[in-house]
């Protein structure tokens, strides 16, 4: 009886919805993308989430394009010239560009936007990180932008790539922080058509774009709060591509003949790290508690733990094989900056035990846990992770097992992320933590985390301090020669790898999928995988 009732409702609703189908004309090519997020805001100054940047990349232009191999190409300007001392950049903006609303796009817009980012301290990323070297920015009557820097820097491309150019005629009159920018007048390959936060973003093609006119007519990003629904949606054809999925779904999607799975380094690098508090009490910053276990300051301990960490097992169990073992905070996704010449510490319990024996850490009371050489304290470490981490609980169990085999015991405890931040840095009130970073295409941001300078700011989580490294960090910031800078960056990675500052269990991988029966031309053969990147979305076309 009850079943029949429900069935009747179902039929009624289906009948109601049946009249919503139809439409006879030539179907526009609409790409439906499913993702688990939504932009936090469309105001480029206030945005923090990757999803917002994905949309900016499609709707706005910037001076440079970031390619999937990690390189940059000049986009808005025909040419870029730099003065001999490296401080004055002159960009000749292409002529005849137009905003989506038909207004002309000129060097004046570019200069105005750069000045806006430079002079608005409320823009957390842009102002703090990308514009500190800007001195003056001016537009010339020849449609040129002259950018004068306070000092020569080696990475002007990565400093400018996320500074999307805004239309002066729209932005001049709005409140720069409160403006929600829902209309989003841009100049890029796609135009904003409709936006409902946490529901969808609908973009239409700008077929007149100067360098990348899309072949499809529309792209729709739909938000799925539930990743199982996302998987089900691509399986049943409700979406044509998904930008993420639970790793557990990968195997079954691979088996679907109409779905192609792609795995690779993400566009925005992500790292999962095991953090050792090795802060020298002499460096304890103001307000610090600095309660780290003294043993962790000894490289031998960290080296032994590195040898006792079976990264492949961690990847197989936690990520179901979808990830790469890591070396330092600089992930493989950073392309040329990643030091691929380093060889990881092999998983070897015998060797690990040997190192500890030689260093004098013996188990004197026979409880299976080694003590400090002076017998003062057992090698028992607190292990914390943010309670919202999905992977960390499993990792902590595996680590307890692996390190237990060399006489090191752990006290695992999940901690509220806020509380963990307070405990972490610059308080240094912990022994070991599992956490992670997300960052920038330029290696500087992540390299900074290892510096002595970062200890009081809260960016350094290990308390690592090495004058040689600090000097190299400064050098790479001013080294203008690309090859020379890369060599320094590689050398820095070698230093922190040899010092076992962190154990990096794995680099996060992007696991995405697209339907092969809908669109073709997705870029999948690059170092990084991002199907929602502009480079892919302007290339794809409907399957005939």
């Amino acid at each position: 009886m009850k079943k029949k009732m429900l069935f009747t409702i179902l039929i009624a609703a289906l009948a109601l919805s049946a009249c919503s189908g139809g439409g006879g004309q030539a179907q526009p090519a609409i790409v439906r993308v499913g993702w688990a997020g939504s932009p936090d805001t469309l105001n480029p100054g206030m945005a923090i989430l990757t999803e917002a940047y994905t949309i900016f990349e499609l709707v706005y232009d910037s001076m440079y394009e970031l390619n999937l191999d990690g390189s940059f190409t000049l986009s808005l300007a025909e040419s870029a010239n730099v003065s001999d001392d490296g401080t004055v950049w002159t960009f000749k903006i292409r002529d005849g560009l137009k905003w989506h609303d038909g207004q002309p796009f000129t060097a004046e817009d570019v200069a105005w936007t750069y000045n806006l980012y430079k002079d608005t301290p409320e823009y957390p990323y842009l102002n703090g990180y990308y514009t500190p070297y800007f001195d003056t920015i001016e537009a010339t009557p020849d449609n040129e932008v002259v950018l004068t820097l306070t000092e020569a820097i080696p990475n002007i491309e990565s400093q400018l790539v996320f500074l999307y150019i805004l239309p002066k005629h729209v932005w001049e009159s709005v409140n720069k922080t409160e403006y929600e920018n829902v209309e989003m007048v841009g100049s890029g390959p796609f135009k904003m058509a409709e936006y409902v936060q946490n529901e969808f973003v609908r973009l239409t093609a700008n077929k007149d774009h100067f360098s990348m006119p899309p072949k499809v007519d529309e792209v729709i990003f739909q938000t799925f709060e539930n990743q199982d629904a996302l998987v089900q949606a691509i399986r049943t054809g409700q979406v044509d591509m998904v930008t993420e999925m639970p790793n557990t779904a990968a195997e079954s999607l691979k088996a679907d003949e109409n779905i192609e799975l792609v795995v690779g380094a993400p566009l925005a690098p992500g790292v999962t790290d095991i953090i050792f508090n090795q802060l020298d009490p002499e460096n304890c910053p103001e307000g610090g508690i600095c309660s780290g276990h003294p043993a962790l300051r000894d490289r031998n301990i960290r080296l032994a733990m590195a040898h006792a960490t079976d990264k492949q097992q961690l990847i197989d169990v936690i990520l179901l094989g979808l990830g790469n073992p890591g070396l330092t905070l600089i992930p493989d996704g950073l392309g040329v900056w990643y030091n691929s010449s380093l060889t990881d510490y092999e998983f070897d319990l015998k060797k690990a035990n040997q190192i500890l024996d030689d260093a004098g850490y013996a188990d004197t009371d026979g409880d299976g846990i080694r003590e400090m050489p002076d017998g003062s304290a057992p090698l028992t470490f607190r292990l914390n992770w943010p309670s919202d981490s999905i992977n960390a609980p499993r990792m902590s169990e595996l680590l307890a097992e692996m390190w237990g085999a060399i006489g090191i015991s752990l006290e695992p405890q999940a901690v509220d992320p806020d509380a963990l931040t307070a405990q972490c840095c610059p308080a240094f009130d912990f022994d070991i933590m599992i956490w992670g970073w997300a960052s920038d295409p330029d290696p500087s941001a992540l390299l900074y985390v290892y510096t002595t300078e970062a200890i009081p700011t809260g960016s350094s989580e290990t308390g690592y301090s090495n004058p040689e490294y600090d000097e190299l960090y400064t050098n790479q910031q001013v080294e203008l020669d690309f090859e020379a800078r890369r060599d320094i960056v590689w050398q820095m990675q070698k230093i922190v790898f040899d010092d076992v500052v962190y154990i990096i269990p794995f680099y996060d991988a992007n696991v995405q999928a697209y339907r092969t029966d809908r669109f073709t031309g997705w870029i999948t053969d690059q170092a990084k995988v991002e199907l929602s990147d502009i480079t892919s979305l302007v290339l794809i076309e409907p399957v005939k």
Partner: protein
Amino acid sequence: MNRTRAVLRKTAWSFFTIVFVVVLNFFLFRVLPGDPARAGIRDPRLNKDAIEVIRVRFGLDKPIINCFDSLNPVKVGNCAVNPLETQFFIYAKNLIQGELGISYHANRPVVDILGERLWNTILLIGVGQILSIILGAAFGVFAAWKARTSLEYTAVGISLVAWSLPTFWLAILLLFWGSTMGLPVAGKATPGMSSLPLLQQWGDIAKHMLLPTLTYTIIYMGEYTLIMRSSLLDVLSEDYILSARAKGLNTVQILRDHALKNAMLPLVTVIAINLGFTVAGVIQIESVFSWPGLGSAIYEAVIRRDFPVLQGAFLLIAITVILANLLADLTYTYLDPRVTVD
């Protein structure tokens, strides 16, 4: 006259409860550990200055309350501060002006976010409640009428199962089943439908509503069936039913004119209470089906530690529960003259 005064008194009590909730709600989110300005943002590109700018923007640099020397012997708060510049005063002032602050995450007014979401939830809960009340009450009457037959046992059995099903589990099962039937698994409408005729848009929304509403209805129908059945069985054993039967009235007349109105009372209580508690169930349903309502807003806000949104949502829910209870109190007197308002 007496009745009017009683109603006024009840309303006044509800108002005080709401004021209490407003105060509690403020402190609830301020005693949580850590710094909301830093939570969820872990990027070496964010330097100290940038974090400070965020804190200033959301007023987090200001003291929570100032200290009232006489009222608070432990000296909580900062005594040197002008009370007009405390977070609590600003919160109270904004609230009176109908503002709930700015979302940490979305950089827009909380009122706008909740306003958008509220109607979607009302739509979902409204249709779901109406369906489950009608179906639940009908099954309940049916079960009581067929008491001590195998039909009753089946109805009770199914209802018990439906009532005890975990909401998210049923939702996921229906999602998988529905997706193979071609039903949409996420959202309120197909993106890009807004240019179509209204009727087609409604059809599209109905299609999207089907699975979440079905989940909702199944979960609540069981409960209403059980309550209706037991309450009706109680009433049917009363003497006046026996005398009605002796007067020669038929079953329909007895049920309609003598039994049902009395048997409705417990159901009304449960419905009123449920209106508040359903938000909990709706969080699960909405987040499984990505239904853009209040429940999924709460879910996202919890994940992102968006305290202003949570604070606003909690306030809204508290007010709803209090008003629903007030309404139930007042409805009682109408349904059963024996119940007086005081």
